[in-house]
Each structure stands twice: as structure tokens, then as C-alpha cells.
């Protein structure tokens, strides 16, 4: 039984990360505390670097990764926003950094509780983004993350999101694979494109003129490549652990007339609601987006093209536009969806509200569920 934060720390430990720059922020802090204790006890061989801000954490991740070490960190909310400038540098330099974000609503007003606006602010930063639905998935995603990010056809950083408190502080049964098993799955990181070694001098982070667009197109290509790599790595993981992941998780959506699209740990309560309604004969289902970047458009079309009524739950809001995920799902499907803004700042949704929401689909509107 471990909490989501412990699962994240275990993922980093099993991946044999070497450098962990860090800065405390609720609700992430237990991750770095756990790692600090393992390093202190000798259970983990890594350098723990307490930095002076999250901006410095992201800078340290980029610098240490540039020298060819495997790096890890975790953050939340305001901390993730403070990293923003460096998020683009890390992805632009094509550094396979893995960072966990424990999502938390953004200030002001200041809140401790979870929603997805922090992650989605970084949507365009060139990082792969994975949303986890339970603690097992957190551990699995961190380990798989290195294999995906370090693939030569990808070489992009990845952010793995778990919902603050709902997952981060909740203990669940988690299978911790053996170190031998992981060592067989994840080889040592040996980069060819970034070496800060006097034996082979190269200049990194230099200026460009017209070539800028070329580099951006390469980054976009890498993001496209990552879809196939994620699927391959997930398939390999399934062989070892029996646990199956992909870009999306479809739950009873094949024969459904009504489907709700959702991200993260709320999917557990939504699944419970789906089961309850299906027991009453209602043709309802759920589609969980596990990957936000790359955006799994083909998978969404496959899952939803025959569905009559689609709703999207957004635990985020882009004021002046709407639910961010709803906007993207609409663009992907080329048809209207009912957009529900819910659970901001950790506001409880609950099965009874999901039941009501299923009854309010079929309208191309935005509705706030308080």
C-alpha cells in the first residue's frame, strides 16, 4: 500500500535516476522527501540537489541531462508555472527529462486542491504529457517514461501528472517490480546528441536565425513519433507486468450511445457511475485521455465516431474560450460536444453528479457543475 507520491518516488528509484534537483511544494513534497531518505540510507545512488526555486530546478534538470545523466524531479502548481521559461528550453534542447507534476489549482485565490490548469498551461511546451488514474499507473508511467523519452525517435521530456491528494496522499495497493526486471527493461541512458565532455566539445543552446522553424518542425515530428513509441513501450511493459496502457483508456465506449471524456483520477468515480447506469440498462461509457501530448486524435475518433452524444469533463478553464480539453476534442472530432467545467480547485464532483451529467448531453454548450 503506497500513496501516489510514494509510487512516483519508486518509479524514479527503479529507473536508477542519477540527479534529482528539487524544491518543496505542496502536494508534491513527499516525493522528494522519500527520495532524500533513500539516498541518505544508501538504498538509492543519486545526487539530491536542493535548489533555490523551481526555475532553478528545471535549469538543473536541463544542465544535468545535457551532460548525459538520467534526471528526475517533481513539482506542482505555482512551481510548474515558475518553470515555464525553462520547460521550453528543456524540450527545445531535446532532453529526455522526466518530471512528475502533482496537480493543484492555480493561485489566486490560493488553493491546495487539485485541478488540471497547472498541467494544461504547459500544453504547448513540447513536453509529452501523461495523466495517471491510479497509483500503480504513476509508478509504471515514470519507468516507461524514460524508455519513451530516451528513444532516439522521440528525445523529448515527459511530464507525468497525478492528481493532488486524490492520488498523491491516498494509499492504494501498488505492485513494485523487482529491480532486475526493470534493469532488463530500461537500459542505461547513453546519449549521442548531448555531451558536455571536453573530449568531444560541442556548443549547446546557441543562437539560430532562419533555421528556427526547422528545429520546431523536428520537435513536432518527434512528438508525432512518440505515439508509436508509447504504444510499443506499453506493449513491452504489458509483457513484463501484465498491465496494459495506451494513449487512451476506453471503458464501455464501444457500444455506448453516450460517452464522457475525462482525464486523471476522477475516471475511477466515473467508471463506478458507468457501471451503475449500465446495470440499469443505460448505454453509457467513458473515454479517459491518458496522453494529452501527443494528443490522441486517431484514438478519440476510433472510440467516439459511432457515439451519439459526447460530453467532456474539464477540470480546467481557459477564460474567454472554455474547457481546454473540450475545445481539443471538438477540433479533433469536427462536431459539437457538451462541455462540463467541474472539480476546479478540487471541488467534489461525485457519482451522483456524474449521473446527472450523463442526462445533460447532446447540447453544444458549456455548463459549470458546482
Amino acid at each position: 500500500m503506497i500513496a501516489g507520491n510514494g509510487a512516483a518516488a519508486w518509479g524514479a528509484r527503479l529507473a536508477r535516476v542519477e540527479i534529482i534537483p528539487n524544491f518543496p511544494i505542496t502536494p508534491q513534497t513527499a516525493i522528494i522527501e522519500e527520495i532524500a531518505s533513500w539516498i541518505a540510507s544508501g538504498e538509492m545512488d543519486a545526487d539530491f540537489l536542493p535548489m533555490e526555486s523551481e526555475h532553478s530546478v528545471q535549469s538543473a534538470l536541463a544542465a544535468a541531462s545535457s551532460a548525459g545523466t538520467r534526471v528526475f524531479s517533481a513539482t506542482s502548481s505555482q512551481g510548474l508555472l515558475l518553470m515555464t521559461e525553462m520547460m521550453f528550453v528543456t524540450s527545445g534542447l531535446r532532453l529526455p527529462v522526466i518530471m512528475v507534476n502533482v496537480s493543484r489549482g492555480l493561485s489566486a485565490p490560493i488553493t491546495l486542491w487539485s485541478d488540471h490548469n497547472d498541467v494544461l498551461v504547459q500544453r504547448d511546451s513540447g513536453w509529452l504529457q501523461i495523466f495517471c488514474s491510479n497509483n500503480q499507473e504513476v509508478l509504471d508511467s515514470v519507468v516507461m517514461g524514460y524508455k519513451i523519452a530516451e528513444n532516439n525517435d522521440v528525445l523529448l521530456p515527459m511530464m507525468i501528472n497525478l492528481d493532488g491528494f486524490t492520488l498523491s496522499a491516498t494509499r492504494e495497493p501498488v505492485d513494485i517490480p523487482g529491480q532486475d526486471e526493470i534493469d532488463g527493461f530500461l537500459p542505461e541512458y547513453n546519449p549521442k546528441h548531448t555531451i558536455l565532455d571536453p573530449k568531444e566539445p560541442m556548443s549547446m543552446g546557441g543562437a539560430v536565425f532562419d533555421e528556427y522553424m526547422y528545429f520546431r518542425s523536428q520537435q513536432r515530428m518527434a512528438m508525432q513519433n512518440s505515439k508509436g513509441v508509447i504504444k510499443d513501450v506499453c506493449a513491452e511493459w504489458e509483457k513484463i507486468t501484465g498491465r496494459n496502457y495506451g494513449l487512451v483508456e476506453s471503458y464501455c465506449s464501444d457500444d455506448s450511445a453516450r460517452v464522457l471524456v475525462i482525464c486523471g483520477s476522477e475516471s475511477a468515480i466515473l467508471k463506478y457511475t458507468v457501471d451503475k447506469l449500465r446495470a440499469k440498462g443505460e448505454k453509457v461509457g467513458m473515454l479517459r485521455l491518458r496522453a494529452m501530448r501527443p494528443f490522441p486524435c486517431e484514438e478519440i475518433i476510433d472510440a467516439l465516431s459511432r457515439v451519439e452524444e459526447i460530453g467532456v469533463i474539464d477540470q480546467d478553464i481557459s477564460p474567454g474560450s472554455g474547457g481546454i480539453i473540450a475545445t481539443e476534442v471538438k477540433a479533433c472530432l469536427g462536431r459539437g460536444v457538451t462541455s462540463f467545467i467541474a472539480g476546479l480547485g478540487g471541488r467534489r464532483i461525485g457519482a451522483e453528479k456524474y449521473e446527472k451529467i450523463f442526462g445533460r448531453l447532446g447540447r453544444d454548450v458549456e455548463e459549470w457543475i458546482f
Partner: protein
Amino acid sequence: MKDPYLKKLTDIPMEDYLVGGHVACQGCSASLGLRLALKVLGKDTVVINGSGCMTLLPVYPTTPLRVPWIHLAIENTGAAGTALYYALRRKNVNANILCYAGDGATYDIGLQSLSGAAEKNIDMIYICYNNQSFGNTGHQRASSTPRASYTPTTPVGKAEAAKDMPAIMAAHRIPYIATACPSYPIDFLNKVTRAAEVKGMAYIDLLVPCPVGWGFDPSEGIDIGRLAVKTGIWKLYEIVDGRVNLTYIPKKRRKVSEYLRAQGRFSHLSERDIEEVQAEVDREWDELEARGYAYDIVV
């Protein structure tokens, strides 16, 4: 063992790790400072640059650098250096870590990150190439800009004096701190050698006269630097174990007007303004003389 310290100009190593053909301005003392520093640090050096003028040295697909170089952003040179120290150690790479960042990136936006590295006493050399302004964006005011200097953002002259950055570093109790100027290459390079020798963090504040920002002919940069020192406006010193020691004492100080009148950024000063600067500099040097040109800054 060969004496690592230089005595005369011809002792300076011939090898270059910053080579010609780059796009720094004519008469740029910042690129000269880096070229000189790399001569004594040698090929086993990794350079971390904070955004500024020097960031334009490598322009894709070319680079004038024969040592590894990384630039990430403006405000994180100290943090990047910290991480690199640990990463290179893990990779068994034995190299000097040279942070080379401007004064805006050091005194202002990067102070937090630099302070973090200093508090941890990371074994690296941090050279602040100090052109006393945000040079690369057009020489706007920084906290390193001297009082009365014109900048595009202080059109009537800066009201405040420059921050005492070496004293701030001294308060972090790092083992080696110095000021320098490329116009005095032997003094500067022996300080770089000492900075590389000490275990822990070394900070060198390098005054780099900037022809474009300060308003003088590109051929005059070395002379302007000499005047800054000979007038007593820029003092050359080291701080070791909290004790300041001057490394150069002008025998007879030149008048500050010679330095100030040679630069466009001070052209608005009246005779009376210049007299005030002279009086202030005289006061400082009288005090230094009384203390025997050495004093404790951290007790």
C-alpha cells in the same frame, strides 16, 4: 613543477579555445576576457553561459568555441553550474566549470541562482563579465550601472550607486573572490588560475569596457579599462577568507575626469558633477590607505 602564475605578457599561453570569426562587436572586452580565461583554464573546461552578448558566439551551424559550451537562459547560470558539477562528477569527467555571464544576469535577474550555488560552495569559477548594463538589449540600466551613468532607461543619469556584488559574494563565505579587468591580463589571469586552484566556488567580477554602450571608439577599450583602474574608480582586489587585499595600487592616481570625459555615457556631467565623483573616489582611497590597502570584510 611549473609555476602556474604568469609574470609577463609572453607567459600567456598561445593556445586559443575561443577562436576568431565570431560576431562579437569590434573592441569587445567581454569576448577578450573569455578568450584570455580559456587560455589559462585550457581544454578541460566546460563553459556555461547566461543569456547576453556572449550567447551570440555560437550561431548555428558554427561555433568559435573549442571547449564544450552550454547556454540555457539568463537567470540560471548558478543553478546550471551546480547541476553540471554533479553531472560531470557522475560521468567521471574532470573539467573546470566556468560560468561566464553578464552583470545583468549576475547582479540582477540571476542573483538568486548564483546565491544558491555560492551557498553550496560548488567547485566552479563564476566570471561576471561586467559592462555595467544590460548590454545585449541596448545597454539599459542594471544594478551594476554606476551612479550618474546615462543609459536608455536612465536618460538623465542613474540616481543610485552600483551594487557591491563582491561583498555580497563575500557574505556567502566562498573561498575566492576577485575583481579584474582584461586591460590587466596578467593580474586577471593569475586570478583565474587561483580561482581554478581553490576547492569551492570562485567569483571574479571582470570589468569589460563596452564601446557601444559606453560610447567610445572600439580601438580605445584597453585604454578605458586602464583608466578605470588608474583613476581608482575600478579597484583590483582579491577577497580570501573574508579579507580584502588590493592587487594593484596606482602610484599616482589619474584624475577621474580623464576616464569620465572619454565616454559618451558620462558626457552630460558638469564640472561640478565630476568634482563630486573625484571627491568620493579620493575619500575611498584615503580610507584604503589608512587601512594599509587590506581589510576584513566578513567578520
